[in-house]
């Protein structure tokens, strides 16, 4: 290891990102690829709204429309929302607990590349014979009947990216359990770390059922198994159960980290400690726990019988209680505070009414008999967009503005941020509020067209106009990002001025080793405590300055994931008589993956040490080297 920062060429820059195991750079990779897929999913959403703008429109054909709604849902959930949240978890959580990296930096990189190649594989379906068309829920009877390879792209792509997510979840769990700085007890962890912790536990428990379901699907479609084939004694309802045992916790995997981001924002921009921190923590855990008890509320109309429906209806209603606790604690956090309406805060403030609206319709749908009317109508489309856009996406946008300075060392324009916010927020309500009524007026979801004689024309038109507003908002955000990076005005440790947790005590972006000395945590909101006591350095230390051990970068995770990507094509064409090379591709792909595993296992990589002298040297230069060697 030579000096910490040097001028480097573009090739070296790319190579650095391809091989990085630094959680902050992996966060940036997640942010960029998640952002890209968000734009792709958004484009698909716009096409949906153009098609439904007027009755009997022929912008999209029936089959293509089904492909687009399927890819819109799948992309937004698996390839946009989750990676974007993983970006913030990666960027911020290790800093919040005073760690130098996550527990398994190599796995962190592997998790990203698996997700990335899974996502690319899934989207290649557009160019290779057609995308999946059975909805993001991929219900088995329709999925098995679907022609072409779309569904195979879905199941193989999600299997690969699911591995990546599972690895990320395990990594965060181990990190939070083992790598907290001295004094950082569980009940002193910032709420974003807590929600990361609970969401990771949900990932650990929820992804295996999905993987099982996807395996069954792959075996049914590619190897003629009969798990879901009714004529052969299979059962399609099993898919629904497996999917929703995963699918419901998945909703909380998305919303809990968003809750975490909002909790940080409310405290920072009200200059006030979170009201009822303990209650917020336990509400988070309870939501995570109940999340596994309610999956069948997605299946009220399946015909499970009144007993199952009644039990799941009651279990679902109970979730409203911890969620309500959270809302009221946030309200009491800003109550009596000193509220500064920055862009992150305006998103957080807008989140409350939006999410409450989505929450109350959730309780309405928990009432099984009422759900017989609401299920699979536009009411449910409105509901889940209210919680996912009004909760998760607002959270991601808020997080982007809040953590941008910490991740990139520059501040997104507040002015353009406000423009994005108003377009997006108004557009969001315009698009989805009206859809509640479309549902109540009898419009089923997932219809590629509707007749002019059903009374749905006006509301659909309004909804489409709203979508246009959202698109403008997102475009302004892109402009904002570009302008900010071009201007490149650097910011200090605590750009918002009111940071409370450890990440705001170190430079923006932090040096690649995060903390030259491991901090000693003296309470909740540790940076705030030090600030209030006049500590100029922002933290006290748990160890003297000494050598720091860091992991080496590695290209192996990328190669390992690429092997899976290749193997997936082999599996995809396995049954095609015209493609005899499929088996060879399958074997080569798995060979690449297992070969790189072997290399990784046999080759010792002990990492490197940054010496004390280098740390002192680096501190003199401002201590925000990005660690290029």
């Amino acid at each position, binding site marked *: 290891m030579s000096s910490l920062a040097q001028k480097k060429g573009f090739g070296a820059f790319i190579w650095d990102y391809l091989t990085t195991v630094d959680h902050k750079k992996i966060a940036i990779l997640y942010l960029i690829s998640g952002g890209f897929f968000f734009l792709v999913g958004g484009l698909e959403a716009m096409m949906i709204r153009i098609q439904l703008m007027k009755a009997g429109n022929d912008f999209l054909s*029936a*089959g293509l429309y*089904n492909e687009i709604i399927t890819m819109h849902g799948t992309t937004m959930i698996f390839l946009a929302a989750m990676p974007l949240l993983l970006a913030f978890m990666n960027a911020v959580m290790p800093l919040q607990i005073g760690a130098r990296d996550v527990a398994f930096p190599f796995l962190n990189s592997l998790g990203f590349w698996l997700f990335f190649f899974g996502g690319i594989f899934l989207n290649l379906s557009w160019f290779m014979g057609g995308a999946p068309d059975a909805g993001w829920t991929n*219900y088995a*009877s*329709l999925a098995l*009947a*679907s022609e072409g390879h779309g569904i195979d792209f879905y199941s193989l792509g999600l299997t690969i990216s699911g591995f990546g997510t599972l690895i990320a979840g395990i990594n965060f769990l181990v990190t939070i359990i083992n790598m907290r700085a001295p004094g950082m007890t569980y009940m002193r962890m910032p709420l974003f770390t807590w929600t990361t912790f609970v969401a990771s536990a949900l990932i650990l428990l929820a992804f295996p059922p999905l993987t099982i379901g996807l395996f069954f699907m792959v075996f049914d479609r590619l190897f003629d198994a009969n798990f879901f084939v*009714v004529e052969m004694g299979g*059962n399609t*309802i099993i898919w629904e159960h497996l999917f929703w045992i995963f699918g419901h916790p998945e909703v909380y995997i998305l919303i809990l980290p968003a809750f975490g981001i909002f909790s940080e924002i409310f405290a920072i921009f009200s*200059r*006030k400690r979170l009201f*009822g921190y*303990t*209650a917020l923590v336990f509400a988070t855990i309870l939501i995570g726990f109940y999340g596994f008890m309610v999956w069948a509320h997605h299946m009220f109309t*399946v*015909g499970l019988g*009144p007993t199952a429906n009644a039990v799941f*209806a*009651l279990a679902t*209603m109970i979730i409203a*209680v911890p969620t*309500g*606790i959270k809302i009221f604690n946030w*309200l*009491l956090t*800003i*109550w*009596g*505070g000193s*509220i500064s*309406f920055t862009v992150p805060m305006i998103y957080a*403030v807008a989140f*409350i009414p939006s999410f*409450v*609206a989505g929450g109350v319709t959730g*309780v*309405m749908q928990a*009432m099984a*008999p*009422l759900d*017989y*009317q609401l*299920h*699979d109508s536009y009411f449910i489309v409105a509901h889940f967009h209210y919680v996912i856009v009004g909760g998760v996406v607002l959270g991601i946008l808020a997080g982007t503005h809040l953590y941008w300075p910490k991740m990139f060392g520059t501040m997104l324009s507040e002015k353009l941020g*406000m423009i994005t916010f*108003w377009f997006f927020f108004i557009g969001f309500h315009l698009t989805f*509020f009206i859809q509640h009524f479309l549902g*109540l*007026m*009898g419009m*089923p*979801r997932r219809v590629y067209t509707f007749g002019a004689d*059903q*009374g*749905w024309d*006006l*509301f659909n038109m309004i909804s489409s106009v709203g979508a246009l507003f959202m698109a403008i908002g997102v475009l302004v955000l892109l402009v904002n990002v570009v302008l900010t990076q071009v201007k490149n005005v650097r910011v200090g440790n605590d750009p918002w001025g009111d940071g409370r947790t450890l990440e705001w005590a170190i430079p923006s972006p932090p040096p690649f080793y995060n903390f030259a000395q491991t901090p000693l945590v003296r309470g909740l909101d540790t940076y705030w405590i030090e600030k*209030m006591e006049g500590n100029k350095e922002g933290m006290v230390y748990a160890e003297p300055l000494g050598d720091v051990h860091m992991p080496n970068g590695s290209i192996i995770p990328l190669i390992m994931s690429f092997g899976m990507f290749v193997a997936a094509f082999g599996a995809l064409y396995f049954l095609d008589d015209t493609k005899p090379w499929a088996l060879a591709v399958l074997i080569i792909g798995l060979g690449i993956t297992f070969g790189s595993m072997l290399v990784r296992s046999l080759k010792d990589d002990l990492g490197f040490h940054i010496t004390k002298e280098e740390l002192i040297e680096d501190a003199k230069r401002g201590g925000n080297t990005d660690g290029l060697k």
Partner: protein
Amino acid sequence: MMKGLTNWRLFALMTALLVFLSGCGREEISTLIPAGKVAQDQFNLLILSTIVMTFIILVVSVIYVLAIVKFRRSKLGDDMIPEQVEGSAKLEFIWTAVPIVLLLILAVPTVYSTFDLADVTAMDSVNEEGEQNNLTVNVTAKLYWWEFEYPEQEVVTAQELVVPTDERVYFNLISADIKHSFWIPSVGGKLDVNPENVNKFYLEFDKESSELEDGVFYGKCAELCGPSHALMDFKVKSVDREEFDQWIAAMQEEPEPAADALAQEGEETFANSCIGCHAVSGSGSAGAVGPNLATFGDRNRVAGFMEHNEENLKKWIQDPQEYKPGNLMPDGETNNGGEPFSEQELDALAAYLMSLSVEE
């Protein structure tokens, strides 16, 4: 910022106004204009939950608006450091307990109604003569059409369900291919039509469909089932018991041969090209390849969704894929043994099909 807020209020107001102006949708399909006991029960739950939820929204809104108005930094000054409050056990208790009570208010009618709407014990009850006390309809969903069988009456029809008003009608639902969902929004909530099991429920029709502007209730498939999911519509005619009995009797009779010359010609073509899949007699049982056409002339739509006229019918016969992608009906050319139907043949077929009627 304040300017933005006013804009937003204006938008909210406009939206509310629009909702108010366009009312509750169409009577034929809106859940907001219930036309039967089941839909009414569900509508009542909607109203009850809306009231409770409005209360919650009001409470949250009041605290919310007060907080963001009272505690703005621009008002309090830049240097103000608020008191760092930890929390309040009393408040936590209140906002845990009150929602639980509110949920209980919703839970009781939910559980009652869940069991009530699933109660099909009376389905198989018979009177002293061994006749069923209640009408049962077997519904089979097939790729983009619906078959309705009246097993006790040994009558079968398709696409247009005919039911008596003011009594409970029981349904057995099964799919012949993939999963669908049976939904008549203004009469009651949906129930999935699974390929592996029979789902049972009941509906009640309080209103005669002739009072509606379009003369029928609209039924929908509510589960994504392929390209033409959006077009898998059916219609419901609700008539009083007397008229229903007449309809059943007419269905049980053998259809009369076509009367005028053109229709007779059509009947011949039909016998050569179509009868393999489509029956024209209403008496029989479920399991046909194509929809039963005994009531075709009485119907409200062609193929479930196109306006009911000869023009559309002819277009449909020539190229069904064009109008309902993915459906299983072969095109005109295939049906006619390799060459397209001539204009004359199409006219004759249309005249014949439109003459198939069991209503006076």
